[in-house]
């Protein structure tokens, strides 16, 4: 397995007038994995993706996609050839039928997998004879996805792919992403849907106000992030619990609630040193971690 990153940015910035949409972003996406790009609306997800694809120019900083520089026009063409992109605003030829656009697109890509395209057409229940302009939003997304994966791209980038899909559609989308990854495609998708991110991602990057605030493997999150609820006879100072791994402390009456990314054993130990009457360790999910990370920053 190759180890050079599929995507790498250094100090990437994009400003629109006085608005700084992306600021000093250092992002690394490893190949052959599924990486989620999580953030609130307006956090800078789409702007970042557009810069990666050479659709807009960075104000400052640099980046590479599959080893090619995003600010170099010649490289940018090569990037767009090797990377498939599924976006919110679909730029499909609306006067063509589903069948026509599939045939039309296949002509541009030598590695086109027509068996996969046919299988997905059935799976997604896309009507071959219907004009693209008469498709529902969910159907357009599925068609866009079909066109993207049938190219068998080295890297598949999706911007909020589950927007406008019903639960069955989301399930089919996730299945398709998993299959693509198994076939050797690196998957990078932006989302604000925690549940889908939690299921299929290997890695989650959180962007907030244009900067990266978290980059963690889901395995590590599940294994080491914990909430520790402590009841004291007399409450100690919060400063006594500012330890390695402590992400947040809240105090109410005699209770203290700590969220920790690691070092839970030492925190429990410290609580006992302060004569805690009860210490409860509970799980903390990606939803809480995400909300807390964006609130903090």
């Amino acid at each position, binding site marked *: 397995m190759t180890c050079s990153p599929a995507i790498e940015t250094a100090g990437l910035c994009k400003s629109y007038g006085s608005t700084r949409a992306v600021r000093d972003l250092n992002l690394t996406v490893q190949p052959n994995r599924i990486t989620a790009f999580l953030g609130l609306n307006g956090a800078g997800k789409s702007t970042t993706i557009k810069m990666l694809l050479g659709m807009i120019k960075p104000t400052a900083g640099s980046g590479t996609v599959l080893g090619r520089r995003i600010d170099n026009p010649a490289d940018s063409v090569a990037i767009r050839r090797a990377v498939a992109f599924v976006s919110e605003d679909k730029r499909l030829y609306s006067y063509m039928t589903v069948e026509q656009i599939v045939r039309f697109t296949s002509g541009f890509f030598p590695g086109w997998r027509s068996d996969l395209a046919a299988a997905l057409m059935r799976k997604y229940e896309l009507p071959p004879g219907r004009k693209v302009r008469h498709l529902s939003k969910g159907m357009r997304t599925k068609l866009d996805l079909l066109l993207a994966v049938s190219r068998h791209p080295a890297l598949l980038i999706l911007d909020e792919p589950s927007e406008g899909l019903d639960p069955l559609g989301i*399930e089919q989308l996730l299945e398709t992403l998993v299959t693509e*990854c198994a076939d050797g495609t690196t998957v990078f998708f932006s989302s604000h849907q925690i549940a889908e991110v939690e299921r299929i991602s290997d890695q989650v990057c959180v962007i907030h106000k244009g900067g990266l605030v978290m980059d963690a493997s889901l395995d590590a999150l*599940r*294994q080491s992030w914990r909430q520790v609820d402590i009841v004291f006879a007399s409450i100690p100072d919060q400063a006594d619990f500012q330890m390695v791994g402590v992400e947040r402390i809240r105090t109410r009456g005699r209770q203290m609630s700590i969220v920790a990314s690691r070092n*839970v054993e030492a925190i429990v130990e410290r609580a006992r040193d302060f004569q805690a009457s009860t210490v409860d360790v509970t799980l903390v999910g990606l939803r809480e971690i995400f909300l807390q990370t964006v609130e903090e920053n």
Partner: protein
Amino acid sequence: MLIKLSTSAGQPLYLQLMQQIRHAIETGALRDGDQLPGIRTLAEELVVSPGTVAKAYSELEHEGALALHHGAGAFVCVNRRTRRFGDRVQAARERVDHLILRLRDEGLLDDEIRRLFEGGLLLPRVETVGKR
């Protein structure tokens, strides 16, 4: 083999998968020489990253519970080591049952006992860096 992974459990998905395969071997649901689905097939079925399945399979191979043949798939190996592991689990189960009975005798409610067990298990054994 029926596998159900929980995204809300405090355990990486690959570890859950390993445990459920081990459990299926202990209970006899999987026998020596049985073939497991390929990485791609199982990842599609469970809708999890193929990396999750690959990691579970390779760790189980390391333990000696699975043999991976390139291209042909994964095969269950019931050997002395896995059998011994099954015996250990059986012995542990008896001790846990005994402890639960005693705690009940001492007046603890099942919910409290469950919380104590779960809380105890959530203490990490190995430190893993989670953020930044």
